[in-house]
């Protein structure tokens, strides 16, 4: 055995590595763009593109912590956003609530199929991704669904930032300081072991899918503020962005005990920074995708929790 082996199971290293990667990325793109990427204007623009992703990532984070997956978040966002925009024309709050309800309903469908019909979550959410993408396209065939134009005044940094931070803080509190987080991690570590420790595994899993739908349904409102209308591609590829983000943040894709809440924040910031950086460097869309793909594969390989041997669900 030549050379010193880097132990990625060391919790400190696991926590530090994404940060180091982020710093490296900042330095790299600052040099490549000759500083253009860190001008205040540009940073503000990047932030404005981050809010929705950050909030939606929270729900998926919970799901992956349990060792499950969710590929339907993009379509879910699309449908929820349509509901939100449509009803916001009657009443702003009704819009928010309808977005959340639609999100919850789709989450419940995912959860029901996965937990009670016992279909692997990967297959379930792949299917519902297509299903609800179809719904989005059907609803937007004639024209994009327009939101209440007065929502535009909410599209300012203080409001968006406050909402995002509140979401993160509340989620962090429940994840870290109540048995909720411990239960999710336990389910991710071993479903059977969790059941024998008295955790209501099926109920928890179902409710977390609903919760993820609620969270993304709320993120749909944030999205509506920014874009003010939904087209057939609304929310497209959100699931991939979330997944890349979480993995960049150092989250093991099989969930379990090594998951940390900071994975969301660092990961999403890093993803936005990388995506913007690649555009500003002047790469073609194809090249951007290629590079993102490579980074994703490398990070998944680095952070996979192979020792747990669990089948990815």
């Amino acid at each position, binding site marked *: 055995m030549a050379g010193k082996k880097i132990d990625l199971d060391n919790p400190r290293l696991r926590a530090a590595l994404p940060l180091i990667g982020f710093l490296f990325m900042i330095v790299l793109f600052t040099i490549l763009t000759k500083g253009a990427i860190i001008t205040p204007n540009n940073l503000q623009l990047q932030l404005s593109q981050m809010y929705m992703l950050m909030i939606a990532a929270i729900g998926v984070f919970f799901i992956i912590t349990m060792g499950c997956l969710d590929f339907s978040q993009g379509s879910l966002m699309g449908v929820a956003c349509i509901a939100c925009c449509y009803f916001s024309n009657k009443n702003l709050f009704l819009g928010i609530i309808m977005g959340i309800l639609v999100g919850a309903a789709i989450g419940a469908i995912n959860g029901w199929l996965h937990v009670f019909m016992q279909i692997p979550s990967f297959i379930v959410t792949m299917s519902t991704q297509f299903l609800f993408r179809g719904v989005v396209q059907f609803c937007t065939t004639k024209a994009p669904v327009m939101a209440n134009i007065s929502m535009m005044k909410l599209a300012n940094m203080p409001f968006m930032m406050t909402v995002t931070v509140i979401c993160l803080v509340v989620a962090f509190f429940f994840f870290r300081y109540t*048995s909720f987080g411990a239960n999710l991690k336990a389910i991710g570590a071993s479903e059977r072991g969790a059941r024998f420790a008295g955790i209501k595994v099926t109920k928890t899993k179902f409710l977390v899918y609903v919760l993820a739908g609620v969270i993304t349904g709320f993120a749909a409102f944030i999205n509506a503020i920014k874009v003010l209308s939904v087209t057939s591609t609304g929310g497209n590829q959100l699931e991939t962005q979330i997944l890349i983000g979480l993995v960049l943040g150092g989250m093991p894709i099989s969930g379990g005990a090594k998951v940390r809440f900071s994975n969301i924040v660092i990961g999403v910031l890093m993803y936005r920074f990388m995506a913007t950086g690649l555009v500003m460097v002047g790469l073609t869309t194809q090249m951007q995708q290629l590079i993102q793909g490579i980074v994703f594969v490398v990070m998944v390989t680095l952070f996979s929790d192979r020792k747990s041997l669990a089948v990815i669900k």
Partner: protein
Amino acid sequence: MQENKVLLRATDIDKQFGITHAVDHVSIDFYSHEIHALIGENGSGKSTFTNMLTGIYTLGGGSFALENKTIQVKNQVSANRLGIAIIVQEMGTLSGLTVAENIFLGEEDPFIHNGVKNTAAMNKKAQDLLDSYGFSRIRANAIIDTYNFEDRKLVEIVKSTYFDPKVLVVDETTTALNHSGRVELFKHMRRLRDLGSCVIFISHDLDEVLEMSDRVSVLRDGEYIDTVNAKDVTTDDLKKLMVGRELGEHYYRTDYGEKIPEEVAMKVENVSVGNEIHNISFELHKGEILGIGGLSECGMHEVGKACFGASFDRTGSVTLADGTQINDINTAINHSIAYASKDRDNESLLINDSIMDNITLPSMRDMGKVLSIKKLHEFADKFAKEMSTKMVNVDQFVSELSGGNKQKVVLARWIGKGSDILILDSPTRGIDIKVKADIYALMDKMRKEGKSILMISEELPELMGMSDRILIMKEGEISGEFLRDPQITDTALIEKMI
């Protein structure tokens, strides 16, 4: 005995699992024309050693040389090609395949012509082999699942001996076989020896060891202790070598004739679970250790699950002293029932999680809605230390602990929860003797504190040494009951089992 030459030389064999040193630089010479027994307590490294020889585990260090040539074993198939075969302790045949496919697993090439497998030829060859072994009632073309555990073991015997391997490992196979199965196995072990092969024989039954083997090597805590000639020693000598000291008198409980308290803690009535157990009824008293014994397939392990509310499709009732019905795990935990499963790694514990999480999970519900990480930490630390768990700190992952320390974490969890009724399934399985003694002492202490313990065990000395009462199960039903008595013998218990 014929002239012996070294057939297989193991030099400096080593293996670590995390911090556990499972096999510690072991060197042994195995001769041709011999049956060489390998004995030691649970966890002494016997199976790990032979698993490295047969390619089930990768070699941690050292080397094996077969007929003076160092061998590189990648997996079981490559071991077979070198002439090394194993009959394993657990199920060694693959479900869903036919008997013939199992026998020729990895050796299908002779039956394949131009990419097409000649199934008929394979079945015929397999049936001929089965017939020649006298197992004609096993059909080569049948799916292996149609046969019971014992017949599947017989298939394994054929699979690992038909090609006359130079080295055959028999890993605790005899416990799975009935008398006639054993006779068959022993016949083929002797046949191979007479052919000049070496049979490495792992068994816990020391009488059997002395009867069958020529030489006996002893391992203890992963270290090589000694090799002796079987005809020069007695079972007591072997025990001493295995344990490293004379077994103390106070290993098990020493009291006899104590009255079992009248008060009933848990009442089990007409409990059935699928085909596993039928109409089981018994009462567990306060302050009593109730042992349940039997063969490993007799359904006794399911009884533990049923009492914990963990069985699917259970009928009948489990009632506590206050009238509470136990139908699910949560009610069980909330009403002070603890359960340590035989399947420690998958059910008792979350091995890919920290010691802290493992200990605190069921107790979190008692610590208020908002949890303090510091308190959780202190809680876990307190009970892990109370059990004298060998660990770095409570943030360490359970997967890095040895079997005994894992079990200590399980017990720490339930002691922390303050459970009054403990269902302990195979509490000392795979645990070294020191921790074993700790666990027995703890059980005795809890009994005196008025807690009730339901101990399910496959080990007779443990049942006889620790229980106030023993229930023996056979084919899913209770077949006998014994009260604590120094006069009880193994034979009396075994009679009720088979």
